[in-house]
């Protein structure tokens, strides 16, 4: 109870160290989700709209990568960015940039696969209409992405939630350096093992609140999107 109280004090006093950690967490995960959305949304929609060689392979790959353990992604990015690795000269290992790269790789398949699932039923419904108006490839893509927007925003939020909550990838490529690459999850892991429970609990509470906000938004989006759904 005493620990919980101290955790609460840290929260309401906007403790500088705490805020720095929360800020970095949000910066890394928002950036990663934006990059993942830029790649994943058009690609996911394209996978739903067009059939091309290797489409099946791409679909299986993206769904498999959804279940990829973050530590494996972390390891792969570590090898890529480490001194001896192919991109070692960039000196990105143990920087927030490395963390953004790792999380982007982790989340892109999620946004891609969920976008594809949101677009697929609409594509079947709209297909002949789009042919009849002589819609080009870009108009098809635009129309279907826009009409699947609530499903796609849900995909984006799901990706963001996963990025914010994962530990494995960021701890490997970020190194959990105090004041530089320490985010909420890695701090919780470290502080708990040190027995410093106040900070860990305060961060845990924030993560919980963010998770509630994300899932509330997903629910609200679903409700709002239903206004546009046709019932016959």
């Amino acid at each position, binding site marked *: 109870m005493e620990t919980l109280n101290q955790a609460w004090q840290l929260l309401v006093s906007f403790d500088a160290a705490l805020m720095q950690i929360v800020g970095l967490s949000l910066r890394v995960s928002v950036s990663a989700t934006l990059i993942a959305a830029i790649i994943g949304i058009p690609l996911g929609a394209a996978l739903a709209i067009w059939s091309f060689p290797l489409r099946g392979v791409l679909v299986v790959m993206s769904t498999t990568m959804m279940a990829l353990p973050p530590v494996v992604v972390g390891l792969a990015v570590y090898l890529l960015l480490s001194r001896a690795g192919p991109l070692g000269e960039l000196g990105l290992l143990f920087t927030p940039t490395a963390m953004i790269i790792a999380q982007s790789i982790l989340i892109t398949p999620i946004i891609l696969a969920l976008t594809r699932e949101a677009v697929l039923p609409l594509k079947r419904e*709209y297909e002949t*209409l789009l042919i*009849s108006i002589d819609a080009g490839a870009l108009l098809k893509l635009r129309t279907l992405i826009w009409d699947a927007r*609530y499903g796609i925003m849900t995909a984006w939020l799901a990706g963001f939630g996963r990025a914010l909550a994962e530990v494995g990838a960021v701890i490997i490529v970020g190194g959990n350096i105090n004041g530089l690459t320490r985010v909420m999850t890695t701090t919780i892991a470290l502080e708990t093992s040190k027995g410093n429970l106040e900070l860990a609990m305060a961060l845990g509470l924030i993560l919980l609140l963010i998770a509630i906000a994300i899932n509330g938004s997903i629910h609200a989006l679903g409700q709002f999107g239903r*206004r*546009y759904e046709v019932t016959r």
Partner: protein
Amino acid sequence: MDRKLRLTGAEFHAQGARLFGPVDLSLETSGITVILGANGAGKSLFLALAHGIILPTKGRVNWQDQPAAETRHTRGYVFQNTPILRRSVAGNIALPLAARRFTKEKKAQLLANALSMSKLQDQAHAPAATLSGGERQRLALARAMVTEPEVLFLDEPAANLDPAFAIDLEQSLRNISSGGTKILMATHDLPQAQRLADDVIFFERGQVVEQAPAAAFFKDAKSEAAQRYLGGQL
């Protein structure tokens, strides 16, 4: 202007089976042509081929000596189960304009015309899903007409409509026709066909059995198949 439709040995196959044709046919460019025939006779396939939505497996489907699929944008299509986009009424009607290179002003003008023609101005910004069945049919017609096409196709447009809406639709089609747009419509509703048709094409098993002016067809169909069809329905 010559906007003649001509099918030459046109066939459509799916999964190895011939579902349509071979059909040789030419069609004048004014008035309302009603496509009749039992379920599965090939009415919808004919409309889709003539519009250019699907390509013939064999033979040619040409408008003015150009393959139909190359001039799709000059024709509008109202589907039997019209897809309603997840956006506003105006957003639905404006969709075909996005595929065309008109100026912004021209697009706004065409959209305003289509909204007022379909009497949907008041609902322009509401989600299209909130429309009633009859209003959705008006939306589908407005969307097909928004680019001011030369030819309008309708596949059983009145199938799910109350009689009052069907009458309303017929009046709209007459107005469109007298405005110079050629209409091709498939229907099961013989009284409606009699009220609207200038000429009739009757299909059976993917073949054209009879093509005749409406008055002659309904009074005195030549083919046995058409006589059976009319007899069974009236």
